[in-house]
């Protein structure tokens, strides 16, 4: 019985490329990975938003209306609904003048009880150090 920790680090802007969206959907898929593993073995994913990546979790994304696709906001909310650990870099929020009022911080409206954590970059560095593998997107 073992648990492998994967740290997804989202650093790219949404929509022009699929990179950040795929980071979220891959992280979400950690919830069903057991079908490939032995009993008791787990893969645990966390998501950290750094640099430009913090724009993926802005509220009020209207990609559904304009592009006809699901929003990264919606995927971000799903990660919280599924109890994934979510970290957001405070220094990068400060740089862009963003506060938690602007961001997807929970999935309470969908029945989730997890909250995203706004943390200093040092905490994200620690998350990377404790992870078995790092996946930058």
């Amino acid at each position, binding site marked *: 019985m073992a648990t492998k920790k994967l740290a997804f*680090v989202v*650093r790219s802007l949404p929509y022009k490329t699929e990179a950040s969206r795929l980071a979220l959907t891959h992280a979400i898929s950690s919830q069903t990975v057991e079908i490939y593993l032995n009993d008791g073995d787990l893969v645990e994913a966390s998501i950290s938003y*750094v*640099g430009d990546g913090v724009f993926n979790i802005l509220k009020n994304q209207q990609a559904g209306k304009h592009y006809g696709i699901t929003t990264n906001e919606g995927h971000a909310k799903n990660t919280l609904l599924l109890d994934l650990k979510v970290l957001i870099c405070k220094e990068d929020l400060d740089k862009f003048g963003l506060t938690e009022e602007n961001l997807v911080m929970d999935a309470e409206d969908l029945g989730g009880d997890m909250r995203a954590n706004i943390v200093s*970059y040092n905490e994200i*560095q620690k998350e*990377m*150090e404790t*992870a*078995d*593998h*790092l*996946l*930058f997107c």
Partner: protein
Amino acid sequence: MKLAVLMSDYRTGSDIVDRLSAEKLGIILVGNGVYHAAAKEGGKACPILEKKADFYALTEDFESRGFTADKLDSRVKAVNYGDLVDLIFNDYEKVIWL
């Protein structure tokens, strides 16, 4: 942690590298990342080379872009794909792509 950063771009990624810290850090310049090893702006070498790290550049990407070995910054070691595999498995525990 012992971290290898595969740097594939010239204009982006430096913001991430600046903040990364690791007990052992390797910066492996691949793709357009090799410009860090040879391009000079205002006559100055790329600031990323000041970082406390071991630097490598993938020879085939370096040569494909018109550079010759004499243009490789003295802080950077030329490697091939086989060397890269050995670095990843033997010298570092985690690998990221920027």
